[in-house]
């Protein structure tokens, strides 16, 4: 029984991966870019799923990690010549990890709603700092930089095209998915899920709940930072808008729409959200406030479909 599920799961995984790999070859430029963007936002949403879906803590502060990833990448690309892809990733991850440690240390003392509010306020702190510290961060205008080449030192170095960028992002997101999936199935991940189900009992058994939560927030922040780095590389800029609370809110929306606690659900949710945005933009024009209908759909989904799009497959996906 279990073996058949395993085979079906990996077959499904392989099919989706193959489709995503072939996609840039057949899609026109606009949709290719669109797909890459879905993957990046999906990675951000997936990282916050570790907290929302597996540990039971709703974070409204993921924009801080995402934004610091972006600015970290920007720092590496602007200060080190010639721009180096791996250095950008390293800087971005260090930036996000630093912020995540700070946020995790304070916010994990609180639970439920208080945690959500505290993470939100922390992300606003970083937003204010980045927005007002014009000499370093470029303030409101942000920073622009050149895209680094896709290179492995000593082997090859080619400039990114939109296809190779897509494959690179796909590779990073797939690897992150597999790592996160492995983590959620590990004993550590089991402890996180038991915190979600019953925190008091987990503590009573003898697990240091606070320490597990800190690690969970840091892990989540690290992957959110990775998403930020990818976004910076794709768009060649870092702007304070991406540290703003709205990005965190969108990450939560992706999760709820796609189905929390599934890891792939958030990616599907990101795709669904971006498609809705595109759909409303095409029908009613660019100026149309797409967040009005999307917000209403979001509320309706919370009330009538709390499991999200992929919630029905939750048990199966976590096998």
């Amino acid at each position, binding site marked *: 029984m279990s073996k058949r599920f395993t085979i079906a799961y990996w077959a499904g995984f392989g099919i989706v991966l193959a489709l995503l790999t072939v996609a840039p070859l057949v899609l026109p430029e606009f949709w290719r870019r669109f797909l890459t963007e879905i993957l990046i936002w999906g990675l951000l949403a997936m990282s916050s799923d570790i907290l929302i879906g597996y540990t039971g803590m709703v974070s409204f502060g993921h924009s801080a990690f995402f934004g610091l990833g972006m600015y970290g990448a920007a720092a590496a690309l602007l200060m080190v010549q010639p721009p180096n892809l791996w250095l950008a990733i390293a800087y971005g991850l260090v930036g996000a990890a630093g912020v995540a440690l700070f946020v995790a240390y304070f916010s994990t003392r609180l639970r439920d709603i*208080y945690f959500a509010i505290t993470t939100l306020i922390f992300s606003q702190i970083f937003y204010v700092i980045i927005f007002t510290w014009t000499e370093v961060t470029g303030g409101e205008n942000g920073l622009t930089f050149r895209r680094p080449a896709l290179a492995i030192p000593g082997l090859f170095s080619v400039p990114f095209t939109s296809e190779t960028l897509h494959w690179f992002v796909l590779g990073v997101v797939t690897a992150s998915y597999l790592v996160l999936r492995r983590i959620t199935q590990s004993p550590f991940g089991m402890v996180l899920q038991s915190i979600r189900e019953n925190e008091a009992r987990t503590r009573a058994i003898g697990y240091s709940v606070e320490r597990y939560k800190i690690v969970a927030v840091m892990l989540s922040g690290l992957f959110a930072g990775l998403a930020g780095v990818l976004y910076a590389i794709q768009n060649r800029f870092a702007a304070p808008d991406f540290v703003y609370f709205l990005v965190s809110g969108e990450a939560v929306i992706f999760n709820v729409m796609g189905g929390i606690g599934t890891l792939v659900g958030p990616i599907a949710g990101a795709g669904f959200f971006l498609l809705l945005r595109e759909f409303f933009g095409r029908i009613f024009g660019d100026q149309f406030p797409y967040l*009005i209908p999307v917000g209403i759909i979001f509320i309706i989904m919370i009330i009538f479909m709390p499991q999200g799009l992929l919630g029905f497959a939750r048990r199966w996906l976590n096998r």
Partner: protein
Amino acid sequence: MDAILAFLQAVPYDQILIQTVNGIVTGMILALVASGLTLIFGIMDVVNFAHGELFMLGAYIGVVVLATSGNFWVALILSTLTVALIGAALQVTTLRPLIGRDPLTTILATFGISLVLQNYALWAFGPVARKIQEPFTGYFTLFYLEYPWYRLLIAGLSAAIIGGFWLFLKYGTYGIWIRATTQDRVMAQAMGIPVPWVHTFVFAIGAGMAAASGVLFGPLVGVNHAMGLDWVLKAFIVVVVGGMGNLGGSIAASIFISLLEAYASIWVSPAQAVIVSFVVLILTLLFRPTGLFVPTPK
């Protein structure tokens, strides 16, 4: 000794006094916003993410009514009533189906509401800030400043609304229903109190208070679609620092935080002064997570 004297002379006393007045004025408005938030939280465990948007919506309705009627007081009352009705409708349609679910779903639902309201305001009124004309433009001299009487009036009015509300909670029949529901929902229901409608009513009151503060605050700065977030964040900080669900604590915390921010803005820009209240929040969470203005839990 000389150093101390020099320091004492360098302190800008006049500015500090002006900022004290400013801080108390904003603090009273913040108290009005935060008491609605803390009331809603206290009674139904709902953190109303859309509270700032109700504040913003109140200010916009004030702008519209003022433009048609020309009377500030009509605008204030109509806006309060309209937003209270909108709040009741929102509670019935989105929050009532969520009763009994994880409290976190309500934060998501109210977040959805805030997105819709904020984008509606942007769509309907455009990105340019609107201005509400103050009802009267008298000034008195405070050192070198011409200080508007209107600001003191706001503080007084906010205090009056909060005071009236407190009396209502303490002595009114429905106020007693509200307090009973806060203490024990099931028992209140058993005693024949229509708990679901008490929830709706409280949400409406909270929404109305937010709207009233929006109209009152409108003349001080412009009214724009993004103003809600600042206020809801500040109100969250106040509610946590003051102790969740504790009305007196929220009022004390509002004034405390507004004063600190006002003093900080003597030396740094107002945008950076916000960080002071964030720091207060962090320190509170570290050393006294139950809130600064509540008795020590035993």
